[in-house]
């Protein structure tokens, strides 16, 4: 199977010449929001990568596996977690995505990098990793953009990384 990753890329490429960026990325935003709202399946989470939540290499360090394409402040160091925004902020409905390798289970995962918005920059745990990151002409793969851009309060505070699913090789 081609990964969701590639599906996105293909779709965006083929659509880019025919439709405006507005409608394309609006769909993408909806899609990712939808994906992030998938119900948690009853899968045992113990004993794998989650066990590495220790300080060293854990979600409060830039080296954490899910952060392979993050550029910003880790919400884990700002009152949130690796997948939750700090209290009083709002998550961005539109995002960029990355594909990160989890050494805990040997799988590649598709990760959505949502910005958390509505407070000034957290200023803690700046992390800049760019695996498969692309310049702004490929927005869905770009981490330079302020993805709070479409929020009512569009100020950037920090960034989370949310597992969307496994990226099949």
């Amino acid at each position, binding site marked *: *199977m*081609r*990964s*969701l990753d590639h*599906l996105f890329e*293909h*779709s965006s490429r083929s659509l880019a010449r025919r439709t405006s960026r507005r409608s394309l990325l609006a*769909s993408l935003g*909806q*899609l990712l929001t*939808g*994906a*992030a*709202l*998938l119900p*948690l*399946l009853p*899968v*045992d*989470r113990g004993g*794998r*990568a*989650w066990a590495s939540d220790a300080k060293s290499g854990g979600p409060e360090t830039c080296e954490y596996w899910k952060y392979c394409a993050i550029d910003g402040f880790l919400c884990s*160091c*700002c*009152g*949130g*977690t690796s*997948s*939750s*925004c*700090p*209290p*009083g*902020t*709002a*998550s961005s409905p539109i995002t960029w995505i990355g594909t990160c390798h*989890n050494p805990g*289970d040997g*799988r590649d*995962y598709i990760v*959505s990098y*949502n910005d*958390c918005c509505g*407070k*000034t920059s*957290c*200023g*803690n745990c700046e992390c800049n990793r760019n695996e498969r990151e692309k310049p702004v002409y490929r927005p869905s793969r770009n981490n330079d953009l302020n993805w709070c851009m479409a929020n009512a309060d569009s100020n950037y*505070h920090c960034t*989370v990384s*949310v*597992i*969307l*699913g*496994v990226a*099949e090789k």
Partner: protein
Amino acid sequence: MGCLMRSAPLRSAATLCLTLSVLAHAAPPPLPAEHLTVQQLPPKSPHWVYVYDEAFNNEIDARVHLFDGDSYRRLGQIDAGFTPSVNLSPDGATTVVATTYFARGSRGARTDVVEFTDNTTLAVTGEIVLPPKRVETAPSLFNIAYSPDGHFLYVAYLTPAASFGVLDPAHGKVLGEIDTAGCVLVIPSGPNRVSSICESGRLLTVTLDTQGHEAARALSEPFFDPDRDPVFVQGIPTTRGYAFLSFLGEVHEVDLSGTRPAFAQPWSLVSPAEQGRWRPGADQVGAIHRALGRLYVPMHQGGEGTHKDGGTEIWVFDMPSHRRLASWPVQAAGLSRVLAVQVSQDPAPILFAASNAADVAVFDALSGKLRHVEKHLGQTPWMMLNP
């Protein structure tokens, strides 16, 4: 297994792909998709501290960091604009920030406003626009303050004419402004009294009626000599009022529980031999554990003009006996000079000390044992508040 469903609507295709790929692997199962949420704060702890960060190098972006002295985690942030006045409501439920915004960041139309943040969500829940008179100065508990019953909110003004605003936080209204004849800041006491510190070393106490208007005013006798030995305005809450430290280390305890301020006989942090050589000095110059009667003061060696240099030691005093119990060198904790101290009010208290390198140290307040140093908790942490 393929997911190249080009003709299917994108949303359905992706959802199906995810579901299938999650289910397709039996052992070990892959990590599930995650929910993106907004973090809830844990229940309030006495070991939390609200850290006022002036962000002096980028002063339009001051903020308050909520930090947990047990887990050593930052719990969240409250934005605070330009040279804000910050305090908590008496029940601890609300952080109140009076600040100034400019229409063009650093320029343009000025808006002074009081913002209310719900301390259980760290969301701003309301605001009251002020006249553009708010005092813009170093932090203290008296730049903005609630009446002890929470009914009134007082905001210090300086234009440089000195006055204060009386606000009704429940109804989001400015009730009025009271001229203080050159006396400054707002020191609340009782349900309806506000004291201000005068250049003469006196307290001006204004009593309000139920509408928040002036009913009476009284000027106290001088309780310190502003020429010989001025007091820091960063008063430290005691059981019945505040303690004010002087530049030379005198402790002026002011009892505000009655209708008129009562001044105890001052006592000294320093021995006669130490006087003028060891001094208190900082932005937040002391903290008191009220139940234990312990006073913590950042002290340093230095002469006239060093009163903001920050402490190289933290001295611990027993308030009733005026005895010094300990002196803790902060360099041993890897700290540079201490600019602010705060102590939790619970039976197992911790002492927070913020340095001029923006580090916040967490000490056992009984033993002085260092538990943690949080590096760079903001840019310029100059005051800390208990929850």
